[in-house]
């Protein structure tokens, strides 16, 4: 059956591919892609990414899982991406189901289908891919022979809006949990049990959340009364999986090298996981604790293998805040020394705001100056203290001065509007800072008579309150207020050398609804998708009116999720998913935010009592390094 389908695919694809944009997205056969003999392998896992190839290929998490699963003789892992709208139209027209890249097997032929949930606006793509893959959307309707659909990634920390569509979620790190699930699958498969048997056993695993085994009861006012396990041996609370020792953790020695241009098309070295700066809006900072740094020797080894096996022309050091990595200078210099002469460049995605970082950036980008980005996030010190972004105006100016002096002509600044306690003055502060950085740059660069070339690009996101953060109780500004704020900021930007980009507030609004949503949103999601919503994070595809119709017709008020201030005592839809940081700590942080009190980083100034180390039996793992000394001073 499989072989016949493969032949059918070839013929149809030959007809269809010349008619779609970037057809090489769908043809696979890339260097380092792993093709195994389907019939010789016990467990087939599909790693599905709910966006197009060009986006999904950049995801490091899947590169790691691809490597781990394919290293097992009993397992194969293949990649599946969302077809772009033109390809999907052709596929539906010709009844061509969604298939994997490696061996072109239909999605529903796989035993386990994983979806990584990186952002809320990808949820309709998940439904769309299940539909294109001929897998029943509702977990309750899946039968023997249907795959188990597994969710992971950051959004799995509040997976409730998707609860009806997934058989299980893996909360936290997948490196160990996924192989354990594969082992479990093999045992179960041999035992001849039914789907529920598999799920009941899976629910016993640390970090595995089976939504069907919990019931949710609601109060009259719509808030949650209780989330309760259905069976006695199902845990009340699911704690995340965490990898304690990153040096020992498996990491690929090769990446699949695409033909077409995709995002992050380079060697990626994950220097560390976690961040304890405690910026209060940041979910990643809370859910990926503790900080675990990799030793420079490990990174050197990984770099050597990856460069050799991929032939990539660029290496990047990746993490939540690479500028904070203890040995960043040591590692960067070493990589430059080794690979610079062969024409391999080095890039740092995000920088800390001080001159030390800029000098480092200058060193590593002597050859190629890629963009420099700083993220002050808020326009006033008062508001920065509220969000705990430990950066002063002076930090920004010192760094900017150093950057311009080192030869950069343009700088990108990231800010957010809609933060709690925000005032008009705070917003005006954004424009003021951008203007001052521009003036500074002109002054510095005018010495080389390049003042006229200086540009500042201002990128302003919209605050979305997220689960597992000190701001998880906050109301998001209304759409009207957000748009007014954006317009206000825009009006303050006079200089042509400052470019201003912002997100459509309506997408931020939808994100806010889904990010703190509960199971009742499943109906909305399904209806929105049915009526044509997909690729919601792509501005030209976003269909706000259809979303609003979906809310109206299902009787769900989106403002209940986005614009409601929660009480301290309210049971939140994700309270039964634990990231290790205590709810009490988050509330305390909220209070400190409102009082404008700063919380230091536990890496440098002692434990702040978030609870993760005690709860999960872990610790920050730090390497030494010159950067450590500089940070502590």
């Amino acid at each position, binding site marked *: 059956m499989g072989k016949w389908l493969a032949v059918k695919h070839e013929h149809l694809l030959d007809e269809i591919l010349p008619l779609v944009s970037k057809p090489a997205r769908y043809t696979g056969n890339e260097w380092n892609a792993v093709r195994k003999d389907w019939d010789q392998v016990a467990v087939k896992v599909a790693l599905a990414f709910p966006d197009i190839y060009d986006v999904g290929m950049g995801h490091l998490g899947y590169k790691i899982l691809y490597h781990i699963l394919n290293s097992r003789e009993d397992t194969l892992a293949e990649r599946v991406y969302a077809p772009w709208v033109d390809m999907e139209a052709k596929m539906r027209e010709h009844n061509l189901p969604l298939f994997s890249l490696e061996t072109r097997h239909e999605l529903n032929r796989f035993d386990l289908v994983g979806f990584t949930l990186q952002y809320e606006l990808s949820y309709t793509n998940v439904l769309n891919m299940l539909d294109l893959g001929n897998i029943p959307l509702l977990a309750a309707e899946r039968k023997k022979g249907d795959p188990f659909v597994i969710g992971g990634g950051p959004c799995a920390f509040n997976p409730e809006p998707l609860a009806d569509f997934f058989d299980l979620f893996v909360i936290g790190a997948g490196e160990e949990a996924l192989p354990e699930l594969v082992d479990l699958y093999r045992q179960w498969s041999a035992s001849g049990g039914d789907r529920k048997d598999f799920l009941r056993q899976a629910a016993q695993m640390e970090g595995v959340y089976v939504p069907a085994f919990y019931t949710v009861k609601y109060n009259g006012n719509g808030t949650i009364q209780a989330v309760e396990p259905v069976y006695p041996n199902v845990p009340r609370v699911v704690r995340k999986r965490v990898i304690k020792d990153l040096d020992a953790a498996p990491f690929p020695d090769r990446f699949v090298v695409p033909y077409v241009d995709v995002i992050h098309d380079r060697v990626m070295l994950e220097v560390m996981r976690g961040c304890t700066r405690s910026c209060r809006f940041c979910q990643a900072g809370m859910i990926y604790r503790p900080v675990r740094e990799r030793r420079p020797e490990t990174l050197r080894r990984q770099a050597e293998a990856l460069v050799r096996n991929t*032939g990539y022309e660029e290496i990047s050091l990746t993490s939540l805040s690479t500028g904070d990595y203890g040995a960043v200078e040591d590692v960067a210099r070493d990589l430059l020394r080794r690979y610079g002469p*062969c024409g391999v460049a080095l890039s740092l995605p995000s920088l800390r705001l001080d001159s030390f970082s800029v000098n480092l950036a200058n060193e590593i980008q002597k050859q190629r100056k890629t963009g420099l980005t700083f993220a002050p996030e808020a326009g006033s010190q008062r508001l920065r203290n509220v969000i705990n972004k430990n950066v002063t105006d002076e930090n920004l100016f010192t760094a900017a001065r150093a950057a311009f002096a080192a030869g950069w002509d343009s700088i990108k600044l990231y800010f957010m509007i809609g933060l709690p306690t925000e005032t008009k003055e705070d917003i005006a502060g954004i424009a003021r800072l951008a203007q001052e950085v521009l003036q500074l740059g002109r002054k510095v660069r005018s010495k080389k008579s390049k003042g006229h070339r200086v540009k500042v690009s201002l990128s302003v996101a919209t605050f979305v309150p997220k689960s597992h953060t000190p701001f998880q109780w906050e109301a998001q500004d209304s759409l009207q207020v957000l748009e007014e704020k954006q317009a206000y900021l825009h009006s303050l930007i006079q200089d042509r050398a400052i470019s201003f980009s912002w997100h459509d507030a309506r997408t931020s609004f939808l994100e806010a609804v889904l990010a703190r949503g509960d199971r009742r949103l499943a109906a909305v999601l399904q209806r929105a998708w049915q009526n044509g919503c997909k690729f919601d994070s792509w501005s030209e595809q976003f269909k706000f009116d259809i979303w609003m119709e979906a809310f109206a017709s299902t009787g769900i008020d989106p403002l209940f999720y986005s614009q409601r201030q929660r009480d301290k005592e309210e049971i939140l839809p994700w309270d039964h998913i634990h990231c290790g940081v205590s709810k009490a700590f988050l509330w305390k942080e909220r209070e400190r935010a409102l009082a404008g009190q700063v919380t230091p980083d536990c890496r440098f100034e002692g434990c702040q009592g978030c609870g993760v180390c005690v709860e999960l039996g872990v610790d920050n793992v730090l390497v030494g390094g010159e950067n450590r000394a500089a940070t502590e001073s």
Partner: protein
Amino acid sequence: MPRLRAKFAKKEPVRFISHLDLMRTVARAVRRAQLPIAFSGGYHPQPRIAYGSALPVGMTSDGEYVDMEFTEPLPVAELPACLNRQLPEGIDFLRAVEIEPRARSLMGIINRAQYTVTGQLKDGTGLKQAVADLLAATELLVVRERRRGKQQINLRPMIFAVEVLWENDGIGALSLLVQTGSAGNVRPGEVLQFLPFRENQVKIHRVDLFISQGGRLLSPLEVVS
């Protein structure tokens, strides 16, 4: 600095990659093979690899050419195998020769392309008749979009040979020799307007690229100085 010229094929498994994709893929293969490739200067050093004509998405070829400049001597005869070991299925290096440092670039000398067009035929006029009509015509006009607007071009003087290879049961194939390059270029897709193939049911294959010199067709591997 040795300059090598190589011939390669782009086959079915990579039919849908673009020319840019191809350039990226070969450059990475050169790195994986750890060949001493030379780099350009400036802010974004690029490997010194220069191609002949760009091959469009969807087209296969048995006759593509590329020049590579190296910083150290290397055994010419081994270059194809060395690269093939680092290339995915579908890109095949066939042969390499050394060219003089001052030899003209591929883009500057290549001026002929031979194609095979295979596909399903529309009902009605057969392929043989259509080809005869095409060759008998003095004007074969196509409209090209230019920056300043549309431009009408006569393809006929740039079509040097058209021959039916076979025709059978609603499918047929023909061979086409046309001009290519900056002095005048015929895209095989443009010639299809005058032929009875069903739309979207053709495959175009580039057989080879040539230099027309003194009435003869030379291979780029022969024109080394």
